[in-house]
């Protein structure tokens, strides 16, 4: 069981940055697959070859018959299944970490550049400001500071692809197991292979106990497959709903949003429009849902709040009722040595404006926000 701690540590990080369904899937993986495999199944298959008995005295016959009956043992097959099914999540995690790192580097470079400029200008006040900004850039590491990774653009695509590949792997392994062994293990295996002199009866050890575990692991694999499909459906449906609502509301109210964000057009073009997720409505780092009706008010707030900072995302405002919005920095603010640090109660103030947060109280604060 200790060997699974290698994978367990990796997957803990994935657990932090998954959707609700993703977390359930990971829990199923940990408890019902890894734990069961490591403790119960291993000991059940421990004597699989030593107690595989063939009705013959011919030396070597048992060896070749066991090899024919079990080209790959169930336990090893399940180990490979768990590894291959977990790998896409790790790829997603790697991408997310990479994105976080790039984001932090970019912010630090910006802060450095601004500090450099102000240093040249000899303006100590701005130097202080810039150093604060620099510190903040360091602190904005998303997972360390308790923030969340926001799923949008290429990161969302990676997440979707990882679930797709995971689903494909599950199906492949379930089908593979069926092709190799069928569903149940028979007690008797009739073997005819050199050097066995004639068809020989061979008896599998503990067939009933093995069948119990085979059925259990098959059921858990089907459950995992179902969870993956549910997550895909959830992601796809929300995205389609968001697209519908956006195309329906392609209205004048979006124009001001576009105008304001025009200077950010370059950055905006890098990112695809975020899908709507109503999972994480209030978060530790203060991002919150901006209901559509509040868009004008929130744009006023953008101008008023000199502490708004760009997170490198395009305008989230006006994207629909379910988007986590991180406000786009207004152009005037960008030209100075950017925003000073957030005020102490910034996050609390932010939460006050969120109407939609009242709608759902079920999402947990550390759920992945999309």
């Amino acid at each position, binding site marked *: 069981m200790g060997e699974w701690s290698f994978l367990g540590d990796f997957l803990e990080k994935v657990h932090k940055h998954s959707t609700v369904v993703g977390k359930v899937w990971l829990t199923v993986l940990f408890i019902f697959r890894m734990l069961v495999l490591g403790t119960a199944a291993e000991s059940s298959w421990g004597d699989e070859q030593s107690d595989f008995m063939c009705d013959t005295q011919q030396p070597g016959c048992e060896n070749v018959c066991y090899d024919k009956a079990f080209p*790959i043992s169930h336990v090893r097959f399940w180990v490979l299944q768990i590894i291959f099914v977990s790998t896409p999540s790790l790829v997603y995690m790697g991408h997310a970490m990479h994105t976080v790192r790039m984001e932090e580097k970019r912010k630090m470079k910006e802060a450095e550049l601004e500090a450099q400029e102000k240093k040249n200008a000899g303006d100590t006040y701005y130097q202080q400001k810039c150093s604060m900004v620099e510190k903040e850039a360091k602190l904005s590491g998303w997972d360390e500071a308790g923030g969340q990774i926001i799923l949008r653009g290429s990161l969302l695509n990676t997440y979707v692809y990882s679930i797709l590949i995971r689903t494909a792997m599950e199906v492949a392994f379930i089908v593979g197991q069926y092709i190799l062994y069928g569903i149940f293990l028979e007690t008797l295996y009739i073997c005819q292979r050199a050097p066995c002199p004639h068809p020989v009866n061979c008896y599998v050890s503990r067939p009933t106990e093995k069948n119990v575990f085979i059925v259990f692991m098959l059921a858990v694999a089907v459950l995992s497959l179902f969870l993956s499909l549910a997550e895909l459906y959830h992601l796809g449906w929300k995205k389609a709903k968001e697209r519908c609502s956006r195309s329906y509301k392609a209205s004048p109210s979006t124009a001001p949003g576009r105008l304001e964000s025009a200077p950010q057009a370059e950055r905006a073009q890098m990112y695809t429009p975020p899908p709507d997720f109503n999972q994480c409505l209030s978060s530790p780092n203060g991002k919150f849902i901006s209901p559509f009706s509040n868009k004008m008010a929130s744009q006023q707030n953008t101008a008023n709040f000199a502490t708004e900072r760009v997170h490198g995302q395009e305008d989230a405002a006006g994207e629909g009722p379910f988007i986590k919005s991180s406000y786009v920095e207004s152009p005037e603010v960008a030209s100075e040595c950017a925003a000073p640090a957030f005020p102490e109660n910034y996050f609390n103030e932010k939460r006050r404006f969120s109407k939609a947060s009242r709608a759902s109280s079920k999402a947990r604060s550390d759920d992945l926000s999309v």
Partner: protein
Amino acid sequence: MSWAFLRDLLSGVNKYSTGIGRIWVAVVFMFRLLVYVAAAENIWKHEHDEFECNIKQPGCENVCFDHFFPVSHIRLWALQLIMVSTPSLLVVFHVAYRENREKHHNQKLYRNPGKIDGGLLCTYLISLILKTGLEIAFLVLFYKLYNGFRIPRLVKCDIKPCPNTVDCYISKPTEKMIFLYFLVATSCLCIVLNLSELSYLIFKYSIKCYLKRHMKKQQ
């Protein structure tokens, strides 16, 4: 067998690696170390007991097993894992040396002790070359020692004290072969990753050097 030490070591290496280096560490953990510990070890556990020869002559099985498996696959696999992970330690030692030097002189000698430039770049490149070399060496060793990557079901043995040519049967040959191919595939993947990291670093730093020289000339 406790591989936690190697795991902790490689986690330290992760800090000072490039992106491709991190992928390499993930591949080594997931596809090699984990598969070895969780699956492969158990396949080869009783290989000697399950090795059977069609003879009652005492000692014949022993000498035949020894002849066909001078070093067991699984032990070679473990050695390969250890040897291939060790060159990364050079980088960790170099960074520790840099940090020590800074402490000793009580001043900032390097902009960032962990950044891959100058001497650390050389160390990193050497570690990559060593890793690739060791991977290739072990693959060649596997190939030469076992006449390819096949594991036959039946081997014929006529070494004393076996009185005649005796049929000997290897246990679980198919399963062993599956995992052997897995080992070869992951080794090749790691070689490809190391070579691409090597070329990436050389390319990146030669461009940097060229640009520096170009700017100096302009000045």
